[in-house]
């Protein structure tokens, strides 16, 4: 524990925004002069990657677009968001870097990011933040990408897009089963594996169901470790063995600024079996901004009972949604692991809460790590996050 430094003057915010703009100008959008062809289409490689050639070409298009973009120091926040928001369309489904699968257009996604950047407290850089529990804020996410060399950034973006391309069948399944979108005529031909997997999974769900052992919970042991603590509890559920949060933080590339949801999904896919065909298939980052509450509820049931797999919940941690809080806090990760419809018709979500406010704030009492609460509040908390997405 340490005392809080005195607050700075407003000038800090201007300096922070200026520094961000310069960083973005200096590093990310100018092509490396010595680039060795990274980002060029490589359809030969596509053949063995499990990615359709047209999808691979789409990946290379988006990566190349990132390599060639330029903005200048006078660029507005809006322009920076436009530069950072790039989307690929795989088999009719849109995936935007950093955001996930979405029905928003690239323009709409960019505008949402611009709005979030404009109000992001961390834009000031060197001033203190409101309570941050470990969800990576949009400004820092941009900074981290900006700090990479063009080649490294292209590599990371290509990997993210390739993972997305391999999971498009799952996205179509969710759109079809949860949102009622008709499958493409050639879906079964393109993805015969999904029909086999789907037959093995129940479509009728009981009134209540839960997974994971509620003894396998731990609070996050650092203020910015909601990601590692969430991954730890999911990993514990799969392996029946607890691994330290520092180890998970390393896998997640967690920094003091937190963890991105893209990394949460990547680590669940690479470190548990919840992504196999007997469970959820590959986890994806899914924008639920266009979901109704009923569709969101169906997704919870489908995942927890049908897939027997936990959900990476991604709410904004505000008091109006989580009345046990003493202060409003940042975006956050929780482990979704249960649902229940009571006899009076009320719907509840069960989750593991990594945030132990009493650990870092002397004026807040400690509560149980296992919580059940109004599903509607959780839905609204998810929707209220500027990304309104989750890991499923």
């Amino acid at each position, binding site marked *: 524990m340490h005392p809080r430094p005195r607050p700075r003057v407003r000038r800090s915010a201007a300096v922070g925004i200026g520094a961000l703009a310069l960083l973005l100008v200096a590093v990310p959008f100018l092509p490396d002069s010595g680039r060795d062809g990274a980002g060029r289409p490589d359809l030969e490689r596509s053949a063995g990657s499990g990615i359709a050639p047209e999808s691979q070409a789409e990946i290379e298009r988006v990566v190349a677009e990132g390599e060639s973009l330029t903005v200048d120091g006078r660029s507005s926040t809006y322009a920076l968001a436009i530069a950072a928001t790039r989307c690929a369309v795989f088999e009719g489904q849109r995936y935007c870097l950093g955001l996930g699968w979405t029905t928003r257009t690239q323009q709409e996604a960019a505008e949402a990011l611009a709005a979030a950047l404009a109000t992001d407290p961390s834009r000031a850089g060197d001033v203190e933040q*409101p309570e941050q529990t470990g969800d990576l804020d949009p400004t820092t996410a941009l900074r981290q990408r900006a700090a990479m060399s063009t080649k490294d950034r292209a590599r990371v973006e290509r990997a993210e897009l390739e993972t997305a391309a391999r999971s498009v069948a799952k996205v179509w399944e969710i759109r079809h089963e949860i949102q009622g979108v008709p499958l493409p005529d050639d879906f079964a031909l393109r993805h015969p594996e999904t029909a086999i997997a789907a037959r093995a999974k129940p479509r009728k769900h009981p009134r209540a169901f839960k997974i994971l052992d509620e003894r396998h919970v731990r609070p996050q042991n650092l203020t910015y470790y909601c990601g590692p603590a969430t991954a730890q509890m999911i990993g514990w559920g799969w392996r029946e063995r607890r691994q330290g949060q520092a180890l998970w933080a390393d896998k997640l590339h967690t920094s003091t600024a937190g963890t991105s949801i893209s990394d949460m999904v990547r680590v669940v896919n690479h470190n548990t079996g919840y992504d196999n065909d007997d469970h959820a298939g590959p986890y994806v980052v899914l924008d639920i901004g266009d979901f109704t*509450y009923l569709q969101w509820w169906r997704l919870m049931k489908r995942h927890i009972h049908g897939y027997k797999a936990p959900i990476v919940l991604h709410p904004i941690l505000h*008091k109006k949604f989580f009345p046990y809080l003493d202060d409003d806090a940042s975006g956050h990760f929780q482990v979704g692991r249960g649902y229940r419809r*009571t006899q*009076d018709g009320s719907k509840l979500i069960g989750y593991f809460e990594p945030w132990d406010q009493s650990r870092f704030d002397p*004026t807040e*009492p400690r509560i149980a790590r296992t*919580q*059940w609460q109004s599903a509607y509040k959780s839905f609204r908390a998810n929707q209220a996050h500027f990304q309104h997405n989750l890991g499923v």
Partner: protein
Amino acid sequence: MRRGVRTALAATTLLVLAACGADDEPTAEQTSTPTPTESETPIETSGPLDWQPTGRSPDARVVVGERWTAIAGESDLRFESNAGDADDVVLPDDSGGSVDAVLLDGDSAVVSYGFGGETTSGLGYRVDLTTSEQTEIVTPEPANGGDWARLGDSVHYPGLGEGGVACLATLSVADGNGEDGWCPSGRVGIAELEANEDGVAVMLFDYASRVSCRTLALLDQSGIPQPVDGPAECTGWDIAATSTGIVWSEVTKPKRQEVAQFHARTDSGTEDLGQGSTGTLTSCGGDTFFVSDPATRTDPARLMRWDGAELSVAYESTSRGNAFLGRPECADGILTISSFGEDGDEQVSAHVG
């Protein structure tokens, strides 16, 4: 007196350790949402309050007072004159913290900020809205976060004691004179401060238990917390003094933290006020209010009102089933609430008395 509080906390800590292990998950057979209508106390279906839209987004934090309205935005905290006859008073968001308490009374306000990280010290300002003068609260130094409560010129808040311990502190808003108050001698925290004409109430809690053991208390004439009779050991959360006794809540199922059972104690005994939302108890205009989630798919979210003798419904959401209310805010006897639901959100305010 201190020993009495400590003893009570120590004893109840042991009890809560056992209680926390109980399987308290809701079952399909249980009614797990609030059921205010199940209370033995007769309920009036409509309250006398005249709710008016604030004209603001329900997502904004708004506190409507008699002469001023406070709006906490993303970049500042703004006080607007209701009559439009004075310039706005703006507190820029230079602190980097988030606005916690906004205690508006007449032409003055007290504002506190909370900070992230492992920050121990907080930040607060006294604001003279007639001159726009803002003065930082220095003594006693505020602790980070926690609840602040105001009654007229007096503000009660968690001050930062030695070793990072939160102590009770009081301050005169007019002249800024502050005074150190009661400090727990052990690892005891202070939360849920609530002040009104009938007394100052507080929750004390321990840090040792897996779920904090909580004791509800009223400050005596010396400003020392005295545990109240009524709340079950370790389970109390909200508390407020009333003209006839106290109102309090108990969270009996630690895994259902959002749900509390509310009670009132009067001269004639104890009343069960039904289930409500934890942390929403608010005193305003001489009465006490708490939020209640829909009990069934066809129920609205409600704001419940206890006037010291009777329970009534002060507000109902338009949405049914999938709906909830934010914690009420009170200033100058005016209550402001935000209502969220499938059929639309709204933010309204009403004079209580």
